[in-house]
C-alpha cells in the first residue's frame, strides 16, 4: 500500500510516533555528544594510537609500527615496575580500607545514643579531596614539623623519599581517605540486612559472634564485593597523592610510579602518545577485569542461593 492511500488516522499516528522519536533523540543528544567526544572517541583512539610510534621530536609524522610498540611497552621495565607498584598498592589499600570500614560500620550500626555524630565523623573523609588529604598527611609525615620523629619513626631518607616506605606511606593516607566511602557503603549494606533474619538466628541460640560471621557477613557479601570493586578501582586510579607528595623529583619516585601517574607522565613529559595509549589500555583491562570478576562472584553467590 502506498503512503498516499493510507487512511488519515494511520498517517497521523505515524507522524505522532515520528515526532516522539525525534524528541527522544533530541533529549538524548546532549549527553550522547559529550560521551561521544570525551569518552568513546578517546577510548577508541587508544587502539589506533597504540599502533603508532610517536617520534622523538615534535613535528615529525608518527610512524606505524603495529603491535610492536604494544609488546615493547608492556615488556619494558618501567611498565612492569609501575604495574608492580600499583598491584602492591592495591594489596595494601583494599583489604585494610574495607575491613576498617566494615568494622566501623558494624560498631555504629546499633541505634544508640550519639550514633549520628559517629556516623558523620566516620563518613567525613568522603568529602576530603585527594589534595586536602595529601597536604594533611604531607604535614604529618614531614621530617621537621611532622609527628613521625616524635613518635620515634624517623626513617632516613625521610619517609616520602624513602624507597621502602614511600609507597606504604601513600597507602596509609589512601586508606584513611577511602575509609569514609568504605564506611558509607558498608553501613548501607548492613541496614539492608533484614533484622528478622538476625533475630531468628539469635532466637535459635546463636552467639553474637556466630550471628555476625554466619549470617551478617554472608548476607553482606554483595556489598562486600561491590566495595571490593570500588576500592580496587579507587586504588588503580590513584594519582593526586603521588603527584603532590612524591612527585617526579623524589628519590623514591620509581617505586611509587603508579599507573595513572605513569600515563600522565608519558603524555606530558615524554610526550609519546602511542606509549600512553598502550598504558591506558592496560589500565582499562585491569579495571574491566575487576568488574567482570565481581559480576562472576555475585552470580555464583546467586546460584548458591537458588
Amino acid at each position, binding site marked *: 500500500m502506498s503512503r498516499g492511500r493510507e487512511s*488519515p*488516522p494511520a498517517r*497521523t*499516528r505515524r507522524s505522532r510516533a515520528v515526532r516522539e522519536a525525534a524528541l527522544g533523540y533530541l533529549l538524548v543528544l546532549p549527553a550522547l555528544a559529550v560521551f561521544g567526544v570525551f569518552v568513546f572517541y578517546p577510548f577508541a583512539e587508544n587502539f589506533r594510537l597504540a599502533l603508532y610510534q610517536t617520534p622523538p621530536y615534535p613535528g615529525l609524522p608518527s610512524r606505524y609500527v603495529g603491535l610492536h610498540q604494544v609488546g615493547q611497552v608492556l615488556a619494558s621495565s618501567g611498565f612492569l615496575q609501575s604495574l608492580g607498584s600499583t598491584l602492591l598498592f592495591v594489596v595494601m589499600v583494599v583489604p585494610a580500607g574495607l575491613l576498617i570500614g566494615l568494622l566501623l560500620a558494624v560498631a555504629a550500626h546499633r541505634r544508640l545514643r550519639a550514633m549520628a555524630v559517629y556516623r558523620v565523623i566516620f563518613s567525613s573523609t568522603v568529602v576530603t579531596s585527594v589534595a586536602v588529604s595529601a597536604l594533611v598527611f604531607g604535614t604529618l609525615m614531614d621530617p621537621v614539623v611532622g609527628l613521625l620523629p616524635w613518635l620515634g619513626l624517623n626513617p632516613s631518607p625521610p619517609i616520602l623519599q624513602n624507597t621502602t616506605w614511600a609507597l606504604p606511606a601513600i597507602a596509609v593516607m589512601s586508606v584513611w581517605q577511602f575509609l569514609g566511602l568504605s564506611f558509607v557503603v558498608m553501613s548501607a549494606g548492613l541496614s539492608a540486612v533484614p533484622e528478622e533474619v538476625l533475630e531468628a538466628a539469635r532466637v535459635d541460640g546463636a552467639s553474637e559472634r556466630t550471628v555476625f560471621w554466619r549470617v551478617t557477613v554472608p548476607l553482606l557479601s554483595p556489598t562486600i564485593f561491590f566495595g571490593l570493586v570500588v576500592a580496587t578501582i579507587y586504588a588503580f586510579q590513584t594519582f593526586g597523592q603521588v603527584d603532590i607528595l612524591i612527585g617526579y623529583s623524589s628519590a623514591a619516585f620509581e617505586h611509587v610510579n603508579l599507573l595513572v601517574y605513569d600515563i600522565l607522565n608519558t603524555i606530558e613529559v615524554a610526550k609519546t602518545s602511542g606509549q600512553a595509549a598502550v598504558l591506558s589500555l592496560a589500565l582499562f583491562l585491569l579495571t574491566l577485569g575487576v568488574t567482570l570478576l565481581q559480576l562472576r562472584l555475585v552470580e555464583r553467590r546467586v546460584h548458591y542461593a537458588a
Partner: protein
Amino acid sequence: MADVAFRGATKRFDRRPAVEHLDLEVADGELLVLLGPSGCGKTTALRMVAGLEEPDEGEIVIGGRVVNDVEPKDRDVAMVFQSYALYPHLNVERNIEFPLRRRGVDAQRRRQTVHEVAASLGLQELLARKPRELSGGQRQRVALARAIVRQPRAFLMDEPLSNLDAALRLQTRADIVALQARLGTTTLYVTHDQVEAMTMGHRIAVLDHGVLQQVGPPHALYDRPANLFVAKFLGSPGMNVLPATLEGTAAHVARVDGGHVPLGDDGVAASGQVASLAVGVRPEHLALSPSGTLEAKVLLVELLGADVHVLCQLGHQTKLVVRQDASAPRPAIGDGVRIAVARGSVHVFTGESGGRLGGPG
C-alpha cells in the same frame, strides 16, 4: 456537553482483541455504565474515548466529531482514575486547580472556582492537605473535584468506588448520581459491580471478552437479558440457570433435573428449533411451596436481614437459589422441599450460544 459514540471501535494488544467492534452511543447528558467482569475491556474502551489508547479500527466520536486524531488534551473530557491519580506533591487546592492552570483562567477566577467546587463536595476543610494525608473517600472526592472543575464535555470514570469500603461506597454512589444529575454532564462510568450499575446507570452496557453483550436501561437488562451471560451477571444472586429439555413438541413445560417448569408461549415456539436448551429463573420468582413442581433438598440457608437465600440441590447436578422473605417459615438444612415457579417468569436460552429464545417481558 456532548454525546459520545464508539463506531466499530476495536483495540488489540499483541493481536488479542481487548475491545472488539464496539458500537455504542452515549446520549448527551446520559450516565451510561460499562459493566463487565475483570479483563473484559472496560478500561480499554474508556481510554479510547480519552485518547490514551488509539483504536486499531473504527471511530470514536465526541460531540458529533470523529476524534481519532485529536490529542487527549484537546478532547475536553475528564477522567477519574481508579487510583485517583492525585498529584502527591500538590495539596488539595493545587490538585483541583491543576487543570485550570492550562486553560488560561486567571488566578482570581481559578481560586473562586476551586472553592466552589470544593464546597460542593465538602472539601473546604481539606484544601491545604497533601493527598497522603487524606482518607480514601476524601481522595476520591478530590479526584471528582478535579474532574468537575474543568466543566468538561464528558466524564470518564474508571471504577472510582472500588477502593472504598462498603458503607462509603453506598454513600458516594448516591453522591455521584446526584452530582451527575445536577451537572447534566455526559458520563461513561466503568464498573464490574452489577449493583453499582443497576443503581446508577441510566443505561447499562454489558461487555464480555471485549464484545458488547447488551445495552439498555437497567430494568430491561434485568427483565429481558439478551443472553445467559447478562442473565447471570446481573442480579445478586444471579439468575438460576437450569439445563432443560422440552416435554413433547408443543408442551408448555420444560423438563429439568428434579421436575419441570412452566414456559411462556413464545419460549415454547422458539425452543422447538434447537437441540439443547437452558431455562433461567430469578431467585425471587421461586418459592418454597408444597404444591411446587420442582423437588429439591436444602443445602444452605442464608439470612441477609430482610431476605433469606435458600440454596437447594435439584437432582444430582443442579443447584438453585430461592429468595424468601425473612418472615416466611425457614426450612432446615437437609430438608426435602418443593419449589414453585412463578407463572410467566421463565427465560429460555439456547444451550450452546446462550442466546435468548423467549421469556417474560
